[in-house]
């Protein structure tokens, strides 16, 4: 039985296809989903989403949101989702520097601090996902 994976963000549908397996960053740790998984609703953390499909692997950098799993369907409702090949490394580097600088300068509002930390975390993740993809390319499995 195929596993239908949908990745949606508030602004667009990012991905929809049948896949063999998907590994996601759940809020309680990394989570692998294969067909016939038990129904599950979970919140998502910031991290890397890996899709395995016919011997190929694809990567997405996702941040926050929800996951709904049914035996034949996985729906990822992420706040942001970027496909590894679409990530603009320069822009992300810039975002990282800005976030680091903001953190170095300190904050008066705790909410601002949390926001800058989250921005930094997202930037670092995108860099990691994009660089991994560049190193390995769409991996072929034997």
């Amino acid at each position, binding site marked *: 039985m195929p596993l239908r994976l*949908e990745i*949606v*963000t*508030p*602004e*667009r*549908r990012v991905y929809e296809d049948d896949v063999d397996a998907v590994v996601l960053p*759940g*809020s*309680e740790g990394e989570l692998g989903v294969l067909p016939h998984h*038990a*129904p*599950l*609703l*979970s*919140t998502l953390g910031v991290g890397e989403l890996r899709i395995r499909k016919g011997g190929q692997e694809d990567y997405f950098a996702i941040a926050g*949101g*929800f996951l*709904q799993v*049914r035996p034949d369907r996985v*729906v990822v*409702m992420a*706040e942001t989702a970027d496909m590894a090949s679409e990530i603009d490394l320069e822009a992300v580097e810039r975002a990282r520097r800005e976030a680091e600088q903001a953190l170095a300068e300190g904050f008066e509002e705790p909410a601002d601090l949390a926001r800058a930390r989250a921005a930094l975390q997202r930037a670092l993740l995108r860099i990691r996902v994009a660089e991994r993809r560049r190193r390995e390319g769409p991996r072929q499995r034997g």
Partner: protein
Amino acid sequence: MPSQREIRRRISSVRNIKQITRAMQFVAASKLKRAQDATLQSRPYSEKLDEVLADVAAVLSAEEHPLLVRREGGTRLLILFTTDRGLAGSLNTNTIRFAARQITEESGDLKVVTVGRKGSTAMRRARVPIAASFEGYGDRPTFASVLPLARLVTDDYLAGTYSSVDLVHPSFVSTLVQRPVVARLLPIEPSDTAAQGIPGHQFIFEPSAGEVLSALLPRYVATRLYQAVLEVTASEQSARMVAMKSATENAQELIDDLTLTYNKVRQSNITREMIEIATGANAAR
């Protein structure tokens, strides 16, 4: 009768106006396309979110989260969505008049949050108490841009400032028709269209149903607000497109009328001059 030169000047100024309205019409048409795309693109997310909310609501009772609890009495909040800019036909007038009816019919306390400059001007003039004003969402609103609004509304609601929150915005029915609607935002009423086939209580929740719900509800509020903003954007562009189209047609009509008058004046001038020449020649003989 105005002079030939005056008429010519008027024709050329109407022609200029026509060029501008025609350009605006085409710009609005292409922006409308983009706004409609954005609305369509945002739909899967909100549908999924509705589904998940229904799943969670099936497990938890309404009292488990303050955003779900109904409250009696207290202040009602209206969030009025209008455009920042005018030249959009009767779109803003209709929306504001519709909102005004809601406001006058409300017997209890009421406050307004305005989104879009037109609404804030109108509400200020009508001396309706304004809790906050937002503007500058532009032609391509992003999800991130509605988060401050969502944050303000949920925080105030959780603090008990309001008993209910409603949205008033033009809804995009078709290119020609945009109808103002009012919709309940808070307290949230989960739809009954739960997950197809699988009842909510069969789901495993991680970390727990309560925590999923707590994370879900603010998202839901933001998504509803984002969709209202997208709806306004699409309505604005289509209203402007239609308004500019009829303005262009009116300008053309005016040009035709003026051209006719111009020719008449020209002809009567020529006739008059010929009579003058003829009488002059007759007198000289």
